């Protein structure tokens, strides 16, 4: 079932949690809501579930307005951040809960409930824990029980709030893959909230990046990583180097480096910011006339096939991070404190002007 949210706004006192958010989630996809804490992602998820009421805007399920529907009528499965397992019920009873509270006419027989719960527990590979209580389970097990419980009522939509947030790194990775496989099996429209970019990029079909109550970018993991639509997305996803300069007459000047920027051709003279990832940085030994920003090598770390360099710019004193193949670092025989030039091979330029066109990716041909 597809989900659409339309111009949703939500405030808590003077804090704006969501500011005119419109999104559509296609049927059958696994979508990640990604952003820093306080960006409004959990609020959006809770509004979709019906746990929170928006100040304005509407939520559409399968094209139909669900705004007035009670949380009980929406048929959503919700997995809470801290799982919210009923602590006084066994695992079996937790999963059976949604079936047991159905009106008498719709309630399945006890035998049917038993069968269904055991099927679900097998699906999450925890049927051997049916008689345990939540406090006897590990974090990862509770997570999976919470998911089984949500699935028991056959929801049309599955919503997960920071599903891996409370787990340690190793369990997190396992569960991530497991959730992806489960989704591929069930194909139920699913949205999960996370602040971990790695998690979002690895698991989701689509990533929605949010910041300060607004949507910054929507796209596939590859799109948002390779072509960030805003400075925020750039700095939020992965390590990035920031270069400040000016755009004028179709060119962007970053200190000694200057690049052609056709999309910003009509810009007279405005501040510009360029972003380049460490692996997009080229370095070369300094020689008079070499193109690039002069910098000193302040740290060198070789781990496996890549060498990580930290360079201190001669002009601003700022730090530039670069990643080059270990072999190239060896052939250059780099020494700490030596003078190099830094040159972004590829970067994304944003012009700081109200009516500026979207960012342009620039490639420096070497």
């Amino acid at each position, binding site marked *: 079932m597809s989900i659409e949210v339309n111009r949703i706004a939500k405030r808590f006192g003077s804090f704006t949690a969501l500011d005119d958010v419109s999104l559509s989630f296609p049927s059958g996809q696994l979508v990640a809501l990604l952003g820093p804490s306080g960006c409004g992602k959990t609020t959006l998820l809770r509004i979709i579930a019906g746990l929170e009421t928006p100040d304005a805007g509407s939520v559409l399920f399968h094209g139909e307005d669900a705004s007035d529907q009670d949380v009980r009528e929406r048929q959503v499965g919700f997995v809470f951040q801290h*799982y919210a397992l009923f602590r006084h019920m066994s695992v079996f009873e937790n999963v059976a809960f949604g079936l047991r*509270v159905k009106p008498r006419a719709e309630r399945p027989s006890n035998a049917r409930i038993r069968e269904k719960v055991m099927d679900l527990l097998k699906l999450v590979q925890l049927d051997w824990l049916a008689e345990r209580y939540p406090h006897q389970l590990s*974090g990862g097990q509770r997570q999976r029980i919470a998911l089984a419980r949500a699935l028991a009522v056959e929801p049309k939509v599955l919503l997960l709030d920071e599903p891996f947030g409370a787990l340690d790194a190793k369990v997190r990775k396992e569960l991530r893959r497991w959730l992806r496989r489960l989704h591929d099996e069930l194909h139920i429209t699913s949205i999960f909230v996370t602040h971990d970019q790695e998690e979002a990029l690895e698991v989701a079909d689509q990533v929605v990046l949010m910041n300060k109550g607004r949507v910054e970018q929507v796209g596939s993991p590859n799109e948002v990583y390779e072509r960030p639509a805003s400075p925020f997305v750039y700095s939020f996803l992965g390590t990035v180097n920031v270069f400040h300069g000016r755009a004028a007459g179709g060119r962007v000047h970053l200190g000694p480096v200057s690049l052609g920027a056709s999309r910003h051709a009509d810009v007279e003279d405005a501040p510009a910011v360029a972003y380049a990832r460490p692996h997009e940085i080229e370095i070369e030994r300094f020689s008079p006339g070499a193109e690039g920003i002069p910098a000193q090598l302040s740290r060198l770390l070789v781990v496996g096939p890549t060498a990580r360099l930290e360079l201190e710019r001669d002009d601003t004193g700022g730090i530039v991070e670069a990643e080059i193949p270990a072999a190239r670092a060896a052939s250059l025989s780099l020494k700490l404190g030596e003078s190099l030039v830094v040159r972004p091979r590829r970067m994304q330029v944003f012009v700081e002007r109200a009516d500026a066109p979207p960012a342009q990716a620039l490639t420096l041909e070497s």
Partner: protein
Amino acid sequence: MSAATLPLPAPVATRSSATAEPRLVRWLLTGLALAFLGLFLLVPLFAVFTEALRKGFETYLAALVEPDALAAIQLTLLVAAIAVPANLVFGVAAAWAIAKFDFRGKSLLITLIDLPFAVSPVIAGLVYVLMFGAQGWFGPWLQAHDIKIVFAVPGIVLATMFVTVPFIARELIPLMQAQGTEEEEAARVLGASGWQMFWRVTLPNIKWGLLYGVILCNARAMGEFGAVSVVSGHVRGLTNTTPLHVEILYNEYNFAAAFAVASLLASLGLVTLVLKSLIEWKTRHELARAAALPGERPA
């Protein structure tokens, strides 16, 4: 304090010697604290039972089965049977609204619930005399319709309810606040109706706190003296609760009987203490088990 003089491990193993007091100081402080508790709590408690049995077991028993004493015990049970359930419903309702919802005036409401603790029981009785007494606001109307509230059983019940209002709500509010709303929300998402959610999720989660509050509330309801004394009218066999019966016997210099009935109330107090400790032990045990595994609740 060298190791040679201390063959046993230090009494509190988790504390380093740098932050523990010398042994002499520890003994002194412990002795002082125990002496204080003994003089103020233990000795008076023993005195009740000793005085009660001073004239032999038969006199003791006779004082308890005497008709006026039985009537007083009966009235005390009746009063508690009304006041405790009423405060139970109030406590659950107030705690539900306060702990699970955000609304303006919440802290004012919490303060108002605690109000009876700040008011003398005697004043609690007085307010009902001023409301329902012969010269009170509703006095003439009540007299015209031949309804007796003050100096009768209804007044005793009302005054007892007044002084015991906060007990259950106070236990439940912090407990339910700490439990948060996630489990109830989960129940709603899974399709539970309001009452299903309450009976199947909320109530099982607060049962120990509820029982704790009920036990304390009951102890106070059965033992209340000041408020009841004002509104009772002290009619033997009719409007005399057990604590008031103790007073009457005592003032008649019938000490053995007074202490005999008092020993009954003291036993109630001891049972209350034992139950209270059991619940504390049980919930602490559960808390420890829940805390042993991370991830259920944010710290």
